[in-house]
């Protein structure tokens, strides 16, 4: 007796909770990336980025010394250590029809995502992408 009413009540609660949960999910539909922690549209592969050709601005989010050692040809440095110093020169090279591709050392490092996020949120630039695999992946594709 108790068991069946317990199950019945539990099922009612479980079902009821779907309603506000679903409504809230609708509200947040485009504010949440449903498939991966970083929205899929924000990531781009080396091949895709190179296919964009001249329309691409490459942004190197790694520390200064790594940039100095080697970087994607034509890439501009932009990191969070010297953000306000490096941003103006990046903006000078930017124009609305360009696509910005930000990279850091590899898939695991977070700097590219953070720089891309700031360009998107603070400077409100559209078409800002994070390079999948980062500098490591670029080196692989170069061969």
């Amino acid at each position, binding site marked *: 007796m108790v068991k069946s009413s*317990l199950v*019945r009540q539990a099922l009612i609660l479980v079902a*009821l909770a779907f309603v506000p949960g679903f409504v809230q999910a609708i509200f*947040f539909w485009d504010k949440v990336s449903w498939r991966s922690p970083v929205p899929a549209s924000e990531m781009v592969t080396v091949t895709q980025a190179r296919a964009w050709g001249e329309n691409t601005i490459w942004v190197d989010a790694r520390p200064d010394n790594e940039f100095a050692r080697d970087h994607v040809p034509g890439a501009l440095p932009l990191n969070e250590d010297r953000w306000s110093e490096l941003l103006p020169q990046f903006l000078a090279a930017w124009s609305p029809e360009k696509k910005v591709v930000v990279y850091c050392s590899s898939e695991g490092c977070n700097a590219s995502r953070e720089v891309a996020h700031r360009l998107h949120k603070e400077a409100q630039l559209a078409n800002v992408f994070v390079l999948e695999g980062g500098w490591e992946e670029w080196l692989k594709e170069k061969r």
Partner: protein
Amino acid sequence: MNDAPTIKHQTSNFLNFVWRIVDVIVGGIFIYAGAIKVFDPVQFAIDIDNYKILPWPIGVGLAFYLPWLEILCGLALILRRLYLGGLSILTGLVAVFLVATIAAKVRGLDITCGCFGHASQNWNFSAHLALDLAILGALLALSFRVMSGNRLQDAV
């Protein structure tokens, strides 16, 4: 003349009152915990993802669903409607959460935020564990009480 039954009645009333307080406190805790997470589902999704047990899309779904389930079950406890169902769901939730927390700790993941969202981010593992065990204890005590048939007719 009939003192014995009156005292027994008073004691029983007092005990029931105490149990009701427990209902309200525990229910209130879950409503609070749920409400905090309702306001920032994205952060909760990230917190779930930190346990590295579930794939991201499922975590996001849970982030939108679980807080409301907590609120509804907390209300069930306080209002004594669907009481049994609410009690069993909450007990299950806390148990699963405890296992996940211990599993994360064993794997070396450092999880400091959990059922209280980012409000509890300053607490350490032991404090979290202690609180969760206390909540589980209260839930189990309430369950025992219902099982022993004391107030079965009140639990609608």
